[in-house]
């Protein structure tokens, strides 16, 4: 590449900077607020924190029994935040696992084994995205109730995967479809069974695409608070997003902002670790012969 003139470089740098401000400012903003005391929240500068405190985070973990005295008890609500965090972890991990398991199986069926009409299967599965979720939870509640899963985390493990499955199946099957058939044939000639060939050769090869599907599933699952708050009823069964949004926490309290950050940290960390793999996987999935 020929060297670029200095003004292109400066322009590029400043656009990157602008992008960074745009992308990060809401996140920065939430972090700043969560570190404030109520006094500073009321009188301070919204963009900086002068006397950072962790008391909002501590409040999240306070149990009702630990707050002494009648007044303290009446004034302070308790949040089963640890339960929420544990539930969220279970739901996220479980949903991603279910999504990946189901989508790898389906994608290999469609892209690798290719039953008759496999392209229409794939299109039909993808087309489920046009179904509006709006009032679907009314009949969905009937289903969940019939299965005896209301107020049970398992209900979410059933519902969340369907939100990410179509996209995951799409990219995984596109990837499997473009893998040269010779790779598998060679293994079969060596005497390996199809199953061994799949687990030993195909699956390790598809690591980037699996990462992409997993990160997509995680992002999709983490975007919901509505379904969580509809299907999980008792406070200690909530997830963080559902709990902060609906239970006896008012959205206007500083604890809520602290809670946001606490949930975000692990999710963001996982995403950051896999960020490069995510792009590589998307690229690999969409390009023929990659």
């Amino acid at each position, binding site marked *: 590449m020929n060297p670029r003139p200095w003004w292109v470089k400066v322009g590029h740098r400043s656009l990157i900077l602008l*992008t960074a401000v745009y992308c990060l400012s809401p996140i920065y903003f939430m972090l700043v607020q969560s570190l404030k005391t109520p006094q500073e929240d*009321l009188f301070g500068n919204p963009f900086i924190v002068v006397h950072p405190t962790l008391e909002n985070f501590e409040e999240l973990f306070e149990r009702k029994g630990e707050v002494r005295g009648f007044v303290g008890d009446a004034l302070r609500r308790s949040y089963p935040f640890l339960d929420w965090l544990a539930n969220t972890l279970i739901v996220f991990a479980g949903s991603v696992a279910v999504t990946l398991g189901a989508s790898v199986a389906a994608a290999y*069926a469609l892209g690798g084994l290719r*039953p008759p009409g496999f392209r229409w299967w794939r299109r039909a599965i993808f087309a489920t995205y046009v179904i509006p979720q709006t009032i679907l939870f009314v*009949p969905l509640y009937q289903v969940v109730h019939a299965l005896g899963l209301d107020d049970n985390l398992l209900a979410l493990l*059933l519902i969340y*995967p*369907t939100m990410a499955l179509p996209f995951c199946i799409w990219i995984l099957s596109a990837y499997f479809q473009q893998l040269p058939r010779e790779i598998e044939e060679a293994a079969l000639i060596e005497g390996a069974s199809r199953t061994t060939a799949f687990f030993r050769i195909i699956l390790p090869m598809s690591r980037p695409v699996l990462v992409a599907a997993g990160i997509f599933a995680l992002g999709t699952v983490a975007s919901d608070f509505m379904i969580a708050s509809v299907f999980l009823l008792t406070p200690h069964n909530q997830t963080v997003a559902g709990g902060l949004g609906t239970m006896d926490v008012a*959205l206007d309290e500083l604890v809520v902002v602290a809670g*946001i950050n606490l949930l975000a940290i692990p999710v963001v960390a996982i995403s950051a670790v896999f960020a490069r793999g995510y792009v590589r996987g998307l690229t690999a999935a969409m390009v023929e012969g990659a």
Partner: protein
Amino acid sequence: MEAPTTRRMRRGREISAAYLLLSPTVLLLLTVLAYPIGWEVWTSFTSLSPLQDGATAFVGLQNYRQQLGTLEFWWAALVTVGYAVVTSVAKVALGLGFAVLLARPFRGRALAFLVIFLPWAYPSGVSVIGYYWMLNPPISTAYAVSLGHLKYSVDSALGGGAWAFISVILFNIWRGSSFIGVLLLAGINAIPRELFEYALLESKSAWRRFRLVTVPLLKPFLALAVFLSLTSAFGDLANVWKLTGGRIVFPVIGTHAYWLAIKQGQFGPASALSLLLVPFLFGVLLVLFRFFDPAERKAT
């Protein structure tokens, strides 16, 4: 070479294995989507309501006719389409910008990529609360007064609730442009480097190269991005509801249907309403399939 019969037997086994592997997905989709959507279609033809006395009657297309006859429906449809179009255009434009900015290697590219990735990676079930804090702040905050003034002036210019709706749009764009940016960057990475170098020899104008090389090659990614963006806007109920606190002046189809069903108990009209835009979205998908799932793929 195998004998034709064993070949055919093997193919038969492959096909049954394929159906077996598809079954978990199909089962999940059937439980979570098939019955509910069937219920919704059926309900849209009835007068089902928990509030009415007597049995539920089959009313045919009456709910649809009634919805099409109300001003509220057309208002909600207009707002929904506007919301979808405005956010999609902005998201694709911003996403394309992000992707182009990161297309060539430079120092700190990995960090810049992480920055673009974050708005989507940040769990939006809670970042929407952050947006609420930022744009519709609680009274207890230092900036509540100044933002309150802004909100008031926007609302008085565009009608009550406008500011809240704008914050929904801003949130949707913020998160969506991140997703699309990353998707398009994956697309740009897929374009062979030599192609850009040839293009450089052919034309000195960066804009021409962008328009004639980058954009056409990104078409499948762009189509996928547009579709996912449209569905997220059409299906959006939760974020609109939360950011506007249910005080809805600019209803989208989702919130209007939710209102009809949950607050007024009119399940029939609500079902009809939420199904009315599905054919439209389906049509869009069929058109977009031509871009991101072209028929030539069959040859591979």
